[in-house]
C-alpha cells in the first residue's frame, strides 16, 4: 500500500472512512480552520457540531477535496485525494443547488452521472427512489415546480443514487419541517444499517444526540472534542436533585461543595465516590429524603462545557434562527 493509500483502523478495529490530522485553512489572513483532527470509522454516523461560522463547512469541504488544506493531512478511505474515489462519496452541500429547468428524475440521474453512474441507470434508480419516497408523481416535474422540501428531497436522493459508501451532509436538517426532519433521520439510520458511513454537520444538537455514534465539536476553527457521544456526556458528572423534609442538619455537611439550594431542592454533581455513601449519611442524619434523582448530562450540556458558554449561546441563537 502506498503512502497515498493508507487505511488506518479505529480503536474498535473498524477501518477509518475518514481521517484528518491537523487540518488548517486560511482565507486571506483569516484562519477558518485551525488544526482539526477527526477520525470516522466505516459504518458510523458522525456529527460535526458547532455554531455558524465555526468551521464546519470548510472542514467538510477539505475532507471532500473541494478545497485543499493549507496544512495537515486528510484521507478518505485511505486516499488523500478524495476525487480519486469520487464514486464512493455522496455529498449534499449546505446551499442546495439544482438546475431549475431539469426534471426531478433527470436531476437525480445527472447527480449520479457526476459520480460515474450511467445516465440510463441513474434514471431508473431515480424513479425507484422517488417512488419509494412518495414522490413518483413528481418525476417529470421541473425542479422549479417543486416545493422547497421536495427539491431538497430530490437533491438528497441525487446524493444517494450512485449508492455511495460515504455520505457527507452539510446541515441536512436546515429548512426541513419536523416531519421531513424525522424522515431524514430515518434515512440516515437506514444508510448506516446498510454499512454506509454518514457524516453530517449540524447546529441542532438533538439530531446528533439521537443519531450519532461519534461527534466532533468545532468552535472557532478548532476541535476541542472529538469522540463518542457517550464519552462527551461523561465529561460532565451527572447532576443530582435532592429533596429533603428537613431543611438543615449535620447531614448537610456531607453534600458536595458545589451543592446549591433552589427552593425545596438541592442540586449538585454526582460525587466521584457514587451516590451510596452520601445516601447512607443522609439516612443516618435523618434528613428525610422525599425524592432523589440522578440525571445524566446531555450532549448539549457537554457542548456547553466543552465549547464554552459563548459558543453555546451562538449555537442557541443559530437554532432559534433555523427554527424561524
Amino acid at each position, binding site marked *: 500500500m502506498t503512502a497515498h493509500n493508507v487505511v488506518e483502523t479505529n480503536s474498535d478495529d473498524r477501518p477509518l472512512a475518514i481521517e484528518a490530522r491537523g487540518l488548517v485553512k486560511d482565507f486571506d489572513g483569516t484562519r477558518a480552520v485551525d488544526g482539526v483532527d477527526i477520525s470516522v470509522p466505516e459504518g458510523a454516523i458522525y456529527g460535526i457540531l458547532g455554531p455558524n461560522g465555526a468551521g464546519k463547512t*470548510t472542514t467538510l469541504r477539505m475532507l471532500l477535496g473541494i478545497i485543499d488544506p493549507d496544512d495537515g493531512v486528510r484521507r478518505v478511505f485511505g486516499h488523500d485525494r478524495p476525487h480519486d474515489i469520487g464514486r464512493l462519496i455522496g455529498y449534499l452541500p449546505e446551499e442546495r443547488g439544482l438546475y431549475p429547468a431539469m426534471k426531478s428524475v433527470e436531476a437525480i440521474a445527472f447527480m449520479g452521472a457526476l459520480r460515474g453512474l450511467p445516465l440510463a441507470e441513474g434514471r431508473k434508480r431515480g424513479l425507484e427512489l422517488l417512488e419509494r419516497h412518495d414522490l413518483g408523481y413528481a418525476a417529470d416535474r421541473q425542479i422549479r415546480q417543486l416545493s422547497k422540501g421536495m427539491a431538497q428531497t430530490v437533491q438528497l436522493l441525487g446524493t444517494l443514487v450512485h449508492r455511495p459508501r460515504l455520505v457527507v451532509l452539510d446541515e441536512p436538517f436546515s429548512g426541513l419541517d419536523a416531519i421531513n426532519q424525522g424522515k431524514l433521520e430515518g434515512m440516515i439510520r437506514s444508510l448506516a444499517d446498510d454499512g454506509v458511513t454518514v457524516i453530517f454537520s449540524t447546529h441542532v444538537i438533538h439530531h446528533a444526540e439521537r443519531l450519532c455514534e461519534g461527534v466532533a465539536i468545532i468552535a472557532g*476553527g478548532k476541535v476541542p472534542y472529538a469522540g463518542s457521544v457517550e464519552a462527551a456526556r461523561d465529561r460532565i458528572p451527572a447532576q443530582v436533585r435532592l429533596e429533603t423534609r428537613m431543611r438543615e442538619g449535620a447531614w448537610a455537611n456531607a453534600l458536595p461543595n458545589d451543592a446549591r439550594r433552589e427552593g425545596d431542592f438541592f442540586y449538585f454533581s454526582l460525587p466521584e465516590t457514587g451516590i451510596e455513601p452520601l445516601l447512607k449519611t443522609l439516612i443516618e442524619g435523618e434528613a428525610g429524603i422525599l425524592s432523589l434523582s440522578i440525571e445524566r448530562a446531555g450532549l448539549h450540556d457537554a457542548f456547553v462545557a466543552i465549547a464554552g458558554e459563548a459558543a453555546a449561546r451562538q449555537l442557541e441563537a443559530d437554532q432559534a434562527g433555523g427554527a424561524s
Partner: protein
Amino acid sequence: MSNHDQAAIDARPRLSRLEAAWVIARRDFIAVLFSRAFLFFLIGPLFPVLVGGLAGSIGGQNSRAAVSSEIGLAMSADDNAAMIAAAASLKPQLRGGVPDLVQVPEAEGNSGFDARDYLEQRKGNYVAIVGGTLSAPEITATEGQIARWKGPVELLAGTALGSSPSTFPSSSTALVTSSAASERSLRLRTAGAAQMILFLLTMLLGGMVLSNLAEEKGNKIIEILAAALPMDAVFMGKLFAMLGVSFVGIAVWGAFGWGFWAVAEDAIVTVTQTNYRELPGPAVGWPMFMTLAILYFSMAYLLLGSLFLTIGGMASTVREVQTMSMPVTMMQLMVFFLAAYTVTMPGSVLETVAIIFPLSSPFAMLARAALEETLWTHALALLWQGFAVIVLVKGGSMLFRKRVMKSGGGGHAKKRRSWFGKRGNANSAQQSSVEPAE
C-alpha cells in the same frame, strides 16, 4: 441493475477527466440548446444587421444627396452649351473625372451675376460656379473644390474651344485576372474581413460561457460539481459545451447567410460593386482557410472562455462576474486591434508579438493564412494556443477552488506582519467580520 453491474461501477472509483468533462459538456450543451434563451440568442444578431442595413441605406441616400458634384455654369449661353457638350463628349473616357454641369438659372441673361455673393449666401447646391469665358474661365468655390475641379474645368473649356482632340484613339485591352499588387490587396481585405468575423463571433459567443457560470453560481450547483469532479474537468466541459453551442449558432447564421446569398447574390454584387466569385482565394486556398478558420475560432473561443471562467473563479457574486468581465472585453478589443494593425506588416516584431500572445494569436494567424501559404506555422500556433488554453483552465480552476469555495463568516485573523512592520492582532471569531469560514 444486477449486483454484477453495480460491482462494475464500483470497480471504477472515479471518472477520467475526459469522462468528467463529457458529463458536464453533455448537460450544458443540451440545456443551452433547448432553452428559449438560445432561440432569442440566435435571432439576436439579426436585429443589428437589420438596423444596420436600414441605417446604411438611409445614410447612403442622405450622403448621396449631401455630396453634390454639380458645377454651376454662369458663362454666356453659348459658352454654357459648349461646356456641357464638351462634358458629354469626355464623359465616356473620364467618367467620374468629369463634373456634372448645369446652368445657374439666376445667371442667365444677368451680366451682373456675382458668383461669390451667390455662393456665400448659400444659394443653389453647386460645388463651384464657373463664369468668365471659354478662353478665361473663372472658378468660384472653396479652396478644396477649386483644387479638385480646376483641371477638369480647364480641360472642358479647352475641349469646348476645340483645342483638344474631338475624338480619342481607341486602345485595345488585355485583361489579367490579377496582379501581385491587386492580389495582395484583395487578400489583405480577406484577412481583415476574416479577423473581423472571428472577433465578432468570439465576442458574441464568449459571453455565453460567462452567463452559464453566472447561472451555476445563482443555482448554487457549482459546489456539487466541485465536490464530484476535478474543477479543471468541469471548466473544460463547460468550455466545450459552449463551443458546441457556438458551432450550432454559426451553422444557423451561416445557413441564413448562405440562403440570403443564394437569393440576393446579384443585388449584393451590385450594391457592393464586387464580384465575389472572382475574388482571389486566400493564400492557403479556401478549403484549408475554412478549416483553419474553424480551428482558430475554436482556440479564440476557448481562450476567451477560459478567461471568463477564471473571472468566474475570482468573483463571489453574479454581479461581480459581470463587472469583472468588462476589462476582459476591453482587452479582447485591444487584442483585436493589435492583430488587425499587424496584418499589413508581416514579419515585423509587432506581428510576432501578436502571434505569440495567446489571445491575439488566432487572429494574427488567421490573417497569415489569408496572406501566406506556409502551413507548418499554423500547426505550431495551434499547439501553442492549445497549451495556453490548458494553462488558463488550470489556473482558473485553481483560483476557483481557492477563492470561491469559501463560506460562512467566522474564523479568526492570523497573526501576520503588516506593511508597517507591526504584527496584526489575532482577533477572536466574534471580533472578526472580515473573512469567512464556517
